[in-house]
């Protein structure tokens, strides 16, 4: 496993973690904390959109390269032996306009994508990608969150209902210590099946937890409380 990846990725990364799997006879490698340089050398399968109502979150390699250049970011990829990216996960700080930044400077990080290419789905890859994505040195000093918007879900491709997809996400992220939290964030409130989950690190102070609560409900009047 390690030898293959050393060949595949010659640039060492001290945070990087890697796992190899054999899925129905095909090898796939999952590696975390990929640098922009490493991602440039991989090929991206752009045939992800298969169903008319589904548009992948990660539509080109530049999204991954940009994310990987951000501070503390973890871009974790599932890579086939021919260097094709077949799955991806991104953990990064939210965009500046997001309300979650009000919790505090670099306290909250978003799992902004976990996606697996069509032919590789239903093989457990997303669970492994998420596990390596969460294996972050700042895990206990950060609040990690995810938002699930049903209009981004490949429900046709999976052949399941939105609520079944939602339950699948709850199970997936629940396995990594995420809990559902209520929020009045307008996009989350647009549909009942939309989802907001978070994992609060063990070393997050009570004051920050409280701020996170106020921010979830858009109550900035409480943000200056000690």
């Amino acid at each position, binding site marked *: 496993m390690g030898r293959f990846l050393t060949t595949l990725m010659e640039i060492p990364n001290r945070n990087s973690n890697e796992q190899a799997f054999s899925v129905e006879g095909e090898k796939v490698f999952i590696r975390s904390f990929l640098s922009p340089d490493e991602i440039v050398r991989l090929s991206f399968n752009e045939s992800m959109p298969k169903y008319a*109502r589904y548009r992948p979150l990660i539509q080109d390699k530049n999204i991954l390269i940009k994310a990987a250049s951000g501070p503390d970011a973890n871009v974790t990829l599932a890579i086939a032996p021919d260097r094709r990216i077949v799955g991806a996960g991104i953990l990064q700080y939210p965009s500046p306009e997001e309300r979650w930044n009000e919790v505090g400077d670099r306290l909250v990080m978003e799992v902004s994508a976990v996606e697996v290419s069509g032919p590789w789905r239903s093989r457990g890859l997303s669970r492994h990608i998420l596990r390596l994505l969460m294996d972050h040195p700042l895990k206990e000093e950060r609040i990690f969150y995810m938002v699930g918007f049903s*209009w981004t879900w490949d429900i046709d491709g999976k052949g399941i209902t*939105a*609520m079944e997809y939602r*339950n699948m996400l*709850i*199970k997936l992220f*629940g396995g990594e210590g995420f809990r*559902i*939290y*209520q929020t*009045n964030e307008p996009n989350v*409130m*647009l549909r*009942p*099946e939309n989802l907001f989950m978070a994992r609060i690190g063990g070393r997050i102070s009570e004051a920050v937890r409280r701020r996170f*609560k*106020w921010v*979830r*409900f858009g*109550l900035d*009047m*409480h943000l200056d409380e000690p």
Partner: protein
Amino acid sequence: MYQRYPKEVVLTDGKEIVLRPVDRADLEKLVSFYRNLSPEDRWFFKEDPREPEVIRQWIENQERGNAFSIVAVHEEEVVAHASLLWRSGGGRKHMGKLRVMVGEPFRRKRLGTWMVFDLTKRAMDLGLRKLRADFVVGFEDLAIEAVQKLHFTKECVIRDYVRDQNGRYHDCQIMIRDLHEQWGDF
């Protein structure tokens, strides 16, 4: 299985509320909640919820699997109660009916919205296709406005359907929400 309750919500005035399913231990608190409502608020109920027997039947209905109720709890007190009712068979099996009552001090703070939102999720989990909520025009206009923001639409009005304590007739507004809209609506 993932535990979905209790759920914590914060109202627009900063009050913290816990939403959770009703259980048998809530009987006294629910009776007390309904006894504290104004006679006007209770008037349009089919039964008198100040009677413990009525609440007991509601709880048993939930245990039989024909209803799901949640309470909103603030500082150990029930401050609101909402139910989703459905039929186990027949032509209206796909249909859920919502009933929400929020205590006066907690109105206009989005508590009702949170409860309707929560029961809508539950209805979808149950595979229901439509939700119905009935409101008395002139008494529950704020609630009508609130559920419209949650994609309920005014389906029809039954003229002079209910009568208030003074014998005056009022319209009944029937609101419907389709739970499986076309994706194109975005």
